[in-house]
């Protein structure tokens, strides 16, 4: 009874958030003359898109590291699998020749869009339907490929102890990166070159006949997909399986003695986490409009790990919050640190290219050392608590 009420509230809150995003994205066309920050070119939207993508990856990492206690550093590898799966399946047959020109075309000389286009048509509403359904299918397949590889690699590595698991998964990601750069597989992966020409977030903007954007959805789409995925992860965490994961994190021996099969539950968590990392990889490819193996280095994994730490290991809302803060700082708010600044004739010291990342890493070290709980610890921002507090305030006023 009470639980249902909370769920409804949560759903309503998510719907409101998505509505706000659509409004925000189109506000400059509705109300002209707003400050630049609301224009579609504003860094605000870059931050929102990137953070939407990263928050999913951070939450998926938290599922593994924070909720199951498996310290894995393979996230970039699974993102790579997702990104490439999406890219390979979605480059239209017409562009394949051009993208794979070094290898004389692609071994898979079609795309999901082409196949669906044969059913729904390629222009107008039919074209839109085939693109939307195509994207959904490709994103799910991206997750499945990542999940499948996690399943394979899980057999050897999930038996390893904490830090060995970390280094083995890191190594696995590096191996994947090498394989995807191998020229011999160029017909599939385009070797070390990037794959581009597939639908991106801006493909979802609705345009008129002349190509003018009528309704922009390029920020809404990553938000929608990430939200759906994160809600699924939260539902998992709050289910019987999520509780079993936490019991493994707290005490493996006790979990096993209480009938929880360690290996199958670790595997489950690993596969699901990797599935969503794969989805995140596909979204990342859509965000940067290309897929290239050299982007998915261990530094990317470290970055995501640090986001998780800042948010609080074991808190989903913490991870999401930390992602938005992290991305906003690195892409927008702290940008000024990278450019030289003069006040009158006085040159502010230190400010030049690269200083932002130095400040950033120092802040991260301070958090790691002195605020090891992160922003949220293991707590969640709970809607129920927010509502209760506000309703209590109301009561007090009355």
């Amino acid at each position: 009874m009470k639980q249902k009420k909370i769920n409804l509230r949560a759903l309503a809150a998510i719907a409101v958030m998505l509505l706000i995003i659509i409004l925000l994205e189109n506000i400059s066309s509705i109300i002209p003359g707003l400050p630049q920050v609301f224009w579609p070119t504003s860094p605000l939207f870059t931050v929102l898109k990137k953070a939407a993508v990263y928050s999913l990856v951070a939450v998926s990492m938290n599922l593994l590291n924070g909720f199951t206690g498996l310290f894995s550093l393979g996230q970039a590898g699974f993102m790579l699998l997702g990104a490439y799966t999406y890219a390979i399946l979605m480059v239209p047959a017409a562009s394949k020749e051009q993208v794979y020109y070094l290898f004389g075309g692609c071994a898979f000389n079609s795309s999901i869009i082409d196949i669906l286009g044969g059913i729904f048509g390629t222009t107008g509403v039919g074209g839109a339907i085939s693109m939307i359904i195509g994207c959904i299918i490709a994103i799910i397949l991206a997750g499945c490929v990542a999940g499948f590889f996690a399943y394979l690699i899980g057999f050897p590595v999930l038996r390893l102890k904490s830090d060995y698991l970390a280094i083995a998964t890191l190594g696995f990601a590096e191996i994947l990166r090498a394989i995807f750069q191998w020229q011999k597989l160029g017909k599939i992966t385009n070797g070390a070159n990037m794959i581009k020409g597939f639908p991106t977030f801006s493909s979802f903007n609705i345009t008129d006949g002349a190509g003018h954007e009528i309704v922009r959805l390029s920020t809404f789409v990553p938000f929608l997909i990430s939200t759906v995925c994160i809600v699924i992860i939260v539902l998992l965490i709050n289910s019987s399986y999520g509780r079993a994961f936490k019991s493994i994190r707290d005490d493996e021996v006790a979990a096993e003695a209480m009938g929880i099969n360690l290996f199958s539950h670790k595997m489950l968590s690993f596969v699901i986490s990797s599935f969503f990392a794969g989805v995140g990889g596909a979204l990342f490819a859509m965000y940067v409009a290309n897929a290239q193996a050299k982007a998915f280095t261990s530094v990317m994994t470290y970055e995501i790990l640090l986001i998780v730490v800042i948010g609080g290991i074991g808190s989903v809302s913490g991870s999401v919050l930390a992602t938005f803060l992290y991305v906003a700082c690195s892409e927008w708010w702290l940008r000024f640190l990278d450019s030289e600044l003069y006040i009158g004739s006085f040159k502010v010291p230190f400010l030049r290219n690269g200083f932002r990342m130095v400040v950033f890493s120092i802040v991260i070290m301070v958090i790691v050392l002195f605020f090891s709980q992160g922003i949220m610890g293991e707590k969640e921002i709970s809607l129920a608590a927010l509502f209760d507090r506000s309703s209590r305030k109301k009561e007090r006023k009355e």
Partner: protein
Amino acid sequence: MGNALRLENITMQFGGVVSVNNLTLDVEEHKITALIGPNGAGKTTAFNCITGVYQPTNGQIEFMGQPIVRNHPTGKAAKTYKGENADKYAKDAVLSPTPDQITGLGIARTFQNIRLWKSMTVFDNVLIAKHQHAKQNVFSAIFRGNMAEEKRMREETMELLKEQGLDAYKDELAVSLPYGLQRRLEIARALATNPKLLLLDEPAAGMNPQETIELAEFVRQIRDKYDLTVFLIEHHMDLVMNISDYIYVIDFGSEIAQGVPKEVQQNQRVIEAYLGVTEEEG
């Protein structure tokens, strides 16, 4: 009545150290049986063999008449093996279930040094133990197709907590409970796995005399209520003599005596083994 549990020629050897030596014992159904012995006698090791934490080097364990664990020394272990009956099980297949499989068969345990899940509430600690037998899969769990099952688990958990008098603490962190209640919670958690046999590893450790008396009464109650067989390890002689129907005494891994409490109390070897040791234990 038959035997709930039977250990047959169980030997556990770590490298060159024989921790349990050719131990054979029977735990009769619906009885409370105790395994006692001085520190380092191999009691917990024997428990760990039963619950699948260790794989015994040699021997067989039967539960409800069915063999569940069986091994014989092979390879390197065969060369260094110091125990007896090495050939007895050589022809039979090796059985080496994981602890969760053992629990699934209906053997539940508590730990000597309490092992509750520390970041979770009292309620969740018991609820998780119900996970194994729940009829659900990961999809039905995520998309809430298992609401009826979830509801049943929650109700049963609440019922268990009420019986143990822990319902008032249900939303508190398990580690915030006083020591005696933590022990009780561990027993409640073990009961949540629907066991037929309950293994208690020093349930009275760290308890005062009053708590110990209550514990004895409590163990008897749950035995009757859930139709359990109880097998326990204990240092606390008062408790053991008070509640046990039958006692096995081991020292240096081997059995030195067995019998009903009266017999064991008067056994000369037991008194010798315990001399100086029980005093230290207090």
